[in-house]
């Protein structure tokens, strides 16, 4: 899990964690619900990982990507009576398309400008959700979705949970591999040395669009989970605050690995559900924690855990990008 060479250790340890999580929550409706919520956030945070954490493009329209994906999926599943195996991917594709269109419109922008415009887009989108009654069912949203059908069979809640946790594991692992691949290296280099990437013949704008599209597709799975778990989909689920929540997850969990985004989701959900004082202070505690991490612990929880483990192993200082692209 530390050096690029030991990609296998990473896959196995994380798979063990995933399975452990499945077993731990199995049979308890509460824990399953919590697990589903955690996975929902995890998908959004993972969706932000590639373009934002790796690529340095802070697009804040993620509530829109979620919403588009989820509504598309729900419409196909309700009106079209489609199997989840079809409606979900199509939702992802539509979300990706949205991201590409917005990304193209804002291709000249970066930093604060990009954040502001995409945030505006997200806000306008929420207005539209309530406004476009004929498409989105307006404020009522889309009620009474049936039990999701996957590969022909109706999906029981606990099966859904298992599949979802598995999916999170797969996505995070895929991103982790991508991160060390040439593509991932180019995206990461784009964050601080875009000119250099461009000078190597790589059109940075295309690179950004591709990563935005992939990010939106991943995040939209989280949106579809809202719909699947609640048998209904309401505009409230796609307010902009969810964007803020999920931006902070990878930072809190740790930027060095996609697993940090997942850990961030776990931590946030834990705060929200376990710490009663946290409720009284709203998200104050959470945002202060994020500030603290940003200022004094930029590597996030996971980053320091990795360093710690490596120290234990007697390896020198953590070389987080160590041995990139050797795997494969």
């Amino acid at each position, binding site marked *: 899990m530390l050096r690029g060479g030991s*990609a296998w250790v990473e896959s196995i340890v994380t798979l063990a964690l995933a399975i452990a999580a499945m077993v731990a929550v199995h049979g308890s409706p509460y824990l399953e619900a919590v697990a589903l919520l955690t996975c929902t956030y995890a998908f959004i945070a993972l969706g932000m990982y590639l373009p934002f954490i790796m690529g340095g493009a802070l697009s804040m329209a993620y509530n829109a990507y979620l919403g588009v994906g989820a509504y598309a999926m729900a419409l196909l599943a309700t009106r079209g009576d489609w199997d989840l195996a079809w409606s979900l991917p199509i939702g992802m594709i539509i979300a990706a398309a949205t991201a590409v269109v917005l990304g193209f419109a804002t291709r000249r922008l970066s930093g604060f400008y990009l954040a502001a415009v995409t945030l505006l887009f997200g806000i306008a989108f929420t207005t539209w959700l309530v406004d476009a009654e004929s498409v989105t069912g307006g404020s009522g949203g889309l009620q009474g979705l049936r039990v999701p059908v996957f590969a022909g069979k109706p999906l029981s809640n606990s099966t859904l949970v298992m599949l979802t946790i598995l999916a999170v594991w797969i996505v995070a692992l*895929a991103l982790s*591999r*991508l991160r*060390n*691949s*040439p*593509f*991932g*290296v*180019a995206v*990461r*280099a784009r*964050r*601080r*040395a875009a*000119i*250099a*990437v*461009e*000078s*190597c*013949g*790589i*059109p*940075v704008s*295309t*690179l950004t669009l*591709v990563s935005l599209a*992939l990010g939106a597709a991943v995040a939209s799975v989280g949106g579809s989970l809202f719909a699947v778990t609640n048998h209904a989909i309401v505009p409230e689920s796609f307010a902009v605050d969810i964007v803020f929540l999920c931006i902070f997850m990878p930072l809190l969990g740790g930027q060095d690995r996609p697993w940090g985004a997942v850990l961030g989701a776990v931590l946030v959900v834990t705060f929200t559900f376990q710490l009663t004082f946290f409720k009284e202070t709203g998200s104050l505690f959470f945002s202060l924690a994020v500030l603290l991490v940003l200022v004094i612990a930029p590597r996030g929880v996971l980053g320091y855990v990795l360093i710690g483990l490596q120290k234990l192993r007697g390896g020198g200082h953590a*070389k987080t*990008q*160590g*041995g*990139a*692209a*050797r*795997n*494969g």
Partner: protein
Amino acid sequence: MADLILECRGVNKAYGAVRALNDVSLELRAGEVLGLVGPNGAGKTTLVDLIGGEQRPDSGAITALGRPLAGAPSRRARVNGLARTFQHPQVALDLTARENMLIGLAGPSLATLSGQLRELAAGILGAGSRIQRDSAHGEVERVAAALGLADIERECRELTLGELRLVEVGRALLTRPALMLLDEPFAGSDAHGVAGIRAAIAEILRNGCGVILVDHNVDIVASLAHRIALLNLGAKVFDGDPKACLASPEMQAVYFGEREAA
């Protein structure tokens, strides 16, 4: 001519009243190193920017490999085989030297949308794309070794300025360019760094490319270049053999004139 790699014809560039480049023409042939020298404000940087694509000329034509040199830098790399280093090294400090050079290796494969999607899939599946085969065969290590760049698993924030310049050169080399633009590669380099650059140039020439070498340090440039173009106040005042250039009255005028002034 077939082996004509870069050609500038009557290039002009002005910033308001200031004429940064005044009707400059240049040629670069395969296997040739053209040294571009001149004092500050001579127009070196402007010319570099015009070639690299940061700016566009007011008039005049620049062609490389017989095709007009225009559009985004990435297009110039793809179409005109241009590779370059930067006066202020453009390196991702949080990545390792290996990763920064890998971008050069990946450049050709990531140049198009389809290529990027292919690499995306390959990256996730971890299965062999061309880059990954090559890097598995130690392309990066080979180049690094050729440049005398040690321990490329270090993060670039741990490297010296000289090493960063070597990383840039290595990155440029790995794109397999036809035309290499070295922008002040010796600034901040120690002897070891200079040796690395020499090695790099030798490597490039082996593949029958051309090199444009821009630097203040006339002596090093002279020792490396086949031909020197001397710029002063935006105009080319000398173009020819390095030794002749060093001895030329223009040279005396430009530099010693400057020294006296200084």
